């Protein structure tokens, strides 16, 4: 039975208010935590390093430290290159370099392409409102590839933040402008998050099978989505889909982390080591690697865990916790501190509501014996009819 809309929206608002009270307490706790000096003294200065020692490896991309590009096209291509580099290596310095050349650019010379890129940078720094503003401008006034890109990016932002109605609208607009596997994947993901996972999976699978001639990038995109939907339905095909994506695109860190997490959930720690080898600098993958090493009693586990502790405490000193999910995961499954994990999982969930975010929060609440704190999340899930095999039940 559907509730009348007014009641529904009041109850939603009430729930939002309750969530924000939780946020307030999480915020206060974070303030307390962030003032705690969690610091060891500086490491010693070594004056006697060998001349032949390789002390640092520089990135292959040249960083522009001289004159910034003067045409919008040149600027866009440089920003694009930096973003690509940040994506494939997980290195946030490139986000900074991109911002460094883009932010002095005058507003009245902004092009649609630059706005889409700026929105991407905003999103990667969790400035979601600003990202949306730029994307909407492009969707309204732009045309061609930039408008498509803006629609897809907006759909992605909205889906990540759990704003499924708005995400669906963006996916539909994308479908009108350009039917194909990308827009099908876009819609399938939103449908799956709102109570129609099985149908969405079947439809996308059928679409994928019919589109054998589609561009590789489209096929890979659909495969990545199929993996996610399969995983949501507890279908082991997920492994195969994601493996296939990584075969063509080994630097897809997002899929790599999803697959590694899948192995951990299926009690297979060994393949996680192989998947995360060489990716120790990427926080999400390093945390998954540490969990796997612990399970396997790997001799290198203490070193990696120590390195992660240091990295996270530096990030807290820095103050911008852009990696709350990773930190919460680290606290929950490496440090065995579900209370702290829950605080960060709650703070993370404020802005990111993908299944891994939700799962982590529910797990931490259960482990911490504070399931009442995950109740608003459960209510939110119920209001979207979102069910997911990855989510734990509340009773241990």
């Amino acid at each position, binding site marked *: 039975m559907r509730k009348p809309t007014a009641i529904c929206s009041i109850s939603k608002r009430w729930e939002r208010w309750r969530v924000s009270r939780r946020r307030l307490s999480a915020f206060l706790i974070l303030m307390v935590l962030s003032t705690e000096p969690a610091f060891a003294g500086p490491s010693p200065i070594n004056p006697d390093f060998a001349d032949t020692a390789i002390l*640092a490896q*520089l990135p292959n991309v040249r960083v522009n*430290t001289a004159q910034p590009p003067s045409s919008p096209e040149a600027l866009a291509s440089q920003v694009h290159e930096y973003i690509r580099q940040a994506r494939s290596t997980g290195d946030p310095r490139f986000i900074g370099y991109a911002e*460094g050349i883009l932010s002095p650019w005058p507003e009245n010379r902004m092009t649609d392409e630059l706005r889409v890129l700026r929105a991407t940078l905003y999103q990667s720094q969790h400035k979601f409102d600003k990202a949306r503003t730029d994307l909407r401008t492009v*969707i309204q006034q732009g045309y061609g*590839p930039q408008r498509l890109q803006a629609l897809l990016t907006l759909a*992605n932002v909205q889906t990540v933040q759990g704003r499924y109605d708005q995400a669906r609208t963006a996916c539909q607009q994308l479908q009108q402008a350009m039917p194909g596997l990308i827009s099908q994947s876009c819609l399938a993901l939103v449908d799956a998050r709102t109570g129609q996972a099985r149908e969405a999976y079947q439809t996308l699978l059928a679409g994928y099978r019919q589109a054998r001639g589609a561009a590789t990038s489209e096929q890979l995109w659909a495969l990545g989505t199929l993996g996610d939907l399969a995983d949501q339905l507890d279908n082991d095909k997920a492994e195969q889909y994601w493996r296939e994506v990584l075969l063509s695109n080994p630097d897809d860190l*997002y899929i790599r982390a999803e697959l590694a997490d899948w192995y951990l959930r299926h009690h297979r720690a060994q393949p996680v080591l192989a998947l995360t080898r060489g990716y120790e600098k*990427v926080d999400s993958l390093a945390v998954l690697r540490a969990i796997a090493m612990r399970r396997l009693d790997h001799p290198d586990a203490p070193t990696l865990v120590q390195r992660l502790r240091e990295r996270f405490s530096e990030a807290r000193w820095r103050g911008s916790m852009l990696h709350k999910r990773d930190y919460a995961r680290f606290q929950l499954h490496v440090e065995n501190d579900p209370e702290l994990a829950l605080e960060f999982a709650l703070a993370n969930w404020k802005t990111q509501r993908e299944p891994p975010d939700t799962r982590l929060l529910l797990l931490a609440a259960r482990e911490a014996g504070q399931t009442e704190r995950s109740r608003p999340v459960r209510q939110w899930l119920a209001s979207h009819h979102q069910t997911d095999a990855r989510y734990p039940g509340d009773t241990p």
Partner: protein
Amino acid sequence: MSHHNPLAFAALWVALLALMSPVAHAHKASDSFIYISPDEGHLRVDLALRDLALLVSLDRNGDQAVSGAEVRAARPAITRTVEQGVMVSNAGGPCRLTGQRWGISEHSDGNYAAADYRIDCADGGTPDTLRYTLLFHIDPLHRALVSIEGSSGSRLAVFGPETGEISLGTRPPSPWQTFLTFVHQGVLHLLMGMDHLFFLLVLAIPATLGVRAATGSRRALGLTARIKKLAGIATAFTVAHSITLALSALNIVNLPSAWVETAIALSITVTAINVIWPVLGERTWLLAFGFGLVHGFGFASVLSDLTSGQSELASALAGFNIGVELGQIGLLLVGFPLLYALAHRPVYERAMVPIMLAVVGVTSLVWAGQRVPLPGWIG
């Protein structure tokens, strides 16, 4: 594949993944480390070799690897860079840094060039101010993490592109200092923001006019009555925006800023219209209260930009609010007598008021149009 532009797709695919990865998969970001003991006159600066390579030519043979020999060869350039980018001073002027120990140190993401310095200030006193300017022009996300060691323990601070300087007093800025800083910010924001000036103007105008009688003509009000009326309006506005400012600053209620800005602009238009056609009634104080609630959210978004990394949130909030009030009172003290003086001339009510209202009403309507986050109503 006839309807697809392959180029569009290449771009699409790349940026799409870019969106998803950097957030969730951050490495350690670019940080420098500064350890300073003002009392002992000691400073240590650690700069990541990767970051230094952007400032001095480290990789002389261009093989994308920095060797020990290359670091040694670049030592003079590194020292010059640090001297230009890290400045210690006190009331007597800049202090001199003398290098003592130099080498490589290790942090969680690799090797850093590290150096110890002795600090000598011109007046022989202890340094009290630190500045740091390196790298921000290339990477605005770069930060310098500072640890200030004192006899009573250490304190952490962070340099970002907008930090300017950090005070080395071993105590963090007192709530009182924070309060004063934010009073200043509050005054500035009220006086620099055309929105609030316009809104106050259209709120004040009815108090300068008489009371509409049943016949449609206006009955003149005495000065005391006008001031009372104005005080009521100003108080209602203040109470209302204080409530929402607090709710929003404490993260209890959050509204999307684009809509708040649009609503603020519209509230000015509506209030301007209401002076001529009192569709919302003649009790201006009620209007001031209702719309004051909206303006409070606007103040909050400014405040939240200023308070990132601010631990004294309560002092900041109180200071900002009081600053806004001071700005408001100051403005009314200057503006109201001016309007009152003019109000005695017939041209005031017949021409000046309508012109002011038209200018304010139309301008704010244009703002509303620019701010509305519409495009297709998605999101």
